């Protein structure tokens, strides 16, 4: 009898170990990114890449739970993939192919199921030629890479959570990208949407509009966009590490895109550009 008890305890322990929902999966980028190559105009190229997370179709139970939550938060929209459903990390390696030391930058942007964010198309102050460029969600800091050497790093889960919330604040909340990215929001309980920015209107002040968006309705990033810049010929390889806390990633990961596309949710985010700016004449 005691032996049977031992077997039961052992099996229970092993089941607990094996069934751990915190085990990560790794999604390798389909291609490497190559930047710093001099083109015909003499400029060095930037590389851009996107990786959409393979999210399964929403189950009936999930849909009903989301509808119930949406009914209580009305008119706030509740996304299918919320902050906290998955924890994402991006691991990267830069290789300097040049004979000289150089610097590289990796800028993180992305999209949730509602909006995509590309700072290169947003001009926040069209009347000021010296205004700083609109910031990305994370990164964009110089990284020294010695000639012929390799440097590895990562965007942590904390950075990705912060970036997801910043993205939601900027796009659904119309919060200024500088304010969103320069304040720490990863533990925020809610954010207050404001009226859309109007870069062409002098002294325009955004005012609160609509109800606050609570944390349970924060949208998680479902598409990773990277911009790779280098002043020498360099290559960036990356992969995305995901801890799927809710079990919404397709088990085939990116292979599902070709083998079982009908089992994936296809999000169609709008590009965020609330007030296309026209340069002052």
């Amino acid at each position, binding site marked *: 009898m005691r*032996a049977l008890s031992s077997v039961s305890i052992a099996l229970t322990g092993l089941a607990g170990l094996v069934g751990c929902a915190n085990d990560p999966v*790794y999604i390798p980028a389909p291609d490497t990114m190559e930047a710093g190559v001099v083109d015909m105009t003499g400029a060095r190229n930037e590389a851009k890449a996107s990786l959409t997370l393979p999210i399964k179709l929403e189950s009936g139970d999930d849909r009903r739970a989301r509808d119930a939550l949406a009914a209580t938060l009305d008119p706030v929209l509740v996304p299918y993939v919320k902050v906290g459903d998955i924890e994402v990390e991006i691991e990267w390696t830069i290789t300097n192919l040049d004979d000289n030391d150089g610097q590289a930058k990796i800028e993180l942007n992305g999209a949730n199921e509602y909006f995509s964010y590309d700072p290169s198309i947003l001009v926040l102050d069209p009347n000021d030629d010296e205004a700083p460029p609109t910031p990305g969600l994370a990164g964009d800091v110089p990284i020294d890479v010695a000639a012929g050497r390799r440097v590895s790093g990562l965007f942590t889960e904390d950075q990705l959570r912060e970036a997801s919330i910043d993205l939601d604040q900027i796009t659904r909340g119309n919060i200024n990208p500088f304010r969103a990215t320069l304040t720490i929001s990863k533990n925020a309980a809610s954010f207050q949407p404001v009226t859309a920015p109007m870069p062409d209107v002098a002294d325009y002040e955004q005012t609160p509009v609509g109800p606050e968006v609570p944390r349970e309705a924060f949208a998680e990033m479902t598409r990773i966009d990277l911009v790779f810049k280098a002043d020498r010929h360099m290559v960036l390889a990356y992969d995305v*590490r995901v801890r799927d806390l809710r079990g919404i990633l397709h088990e085939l990961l990116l292979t599902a895109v070709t083998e079982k596309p009908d089992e994936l949710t296809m999000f169609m985010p709008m590009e965020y550009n609330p007030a296309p700016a026209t340069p002052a004449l």
Partner: protein
Amino acid sequence: MHRFVVIAGALAVLAARSDTARARPASTGWFAEGGLGAVAFLSKASKDAKLGPAFNLRVGRDLFSWLSVGVTLAASSHEATVPPPPEGEWFQLYRGGADARLTGSFQRIAVFAEGGLGLAVISSNILGKVMITDPGESRSIAFQAGAGVEYQLENRHYAVGLAGDGFVIPQFDAIRGIDSRLYLRYTY
């Protein structure tokens, strides 16, 4: 003088009767073993995963003094050394199955050979980068065989042992490894 002869005679009789106590035989029946050790991968996979600490548990029954059957559970943790990225990431390999053990005993020392089959589960797809696992694949059948030596302690219920098993996991690109362990056995 007479008293001395009597005492000496009594001591001689006692000395003659007190031969060395025989060691108690080892218990047989239901048993449990817990072990700690290390798992190392062989050949191609040795480049993609480092040697890692391992934990083993075996529960079974002696059918005869020379044959036992049992179920085994093992877990090991390894740092993946696949081409970066990623770097510094770990994965766990869980193995469980049934086995049989043939034992030959020589007083307190026993040597044995064992073999079995079961299931292996890997905790992540990190070895997918080097094509050891396929997309969506995390389980495989596993075979293992090995040998060891066991020392019976004074208490008939306890023994300690050293064992090494080789294993192969066919669905994980037939990776092979060595599981070595130091264990404590308790027989009920």
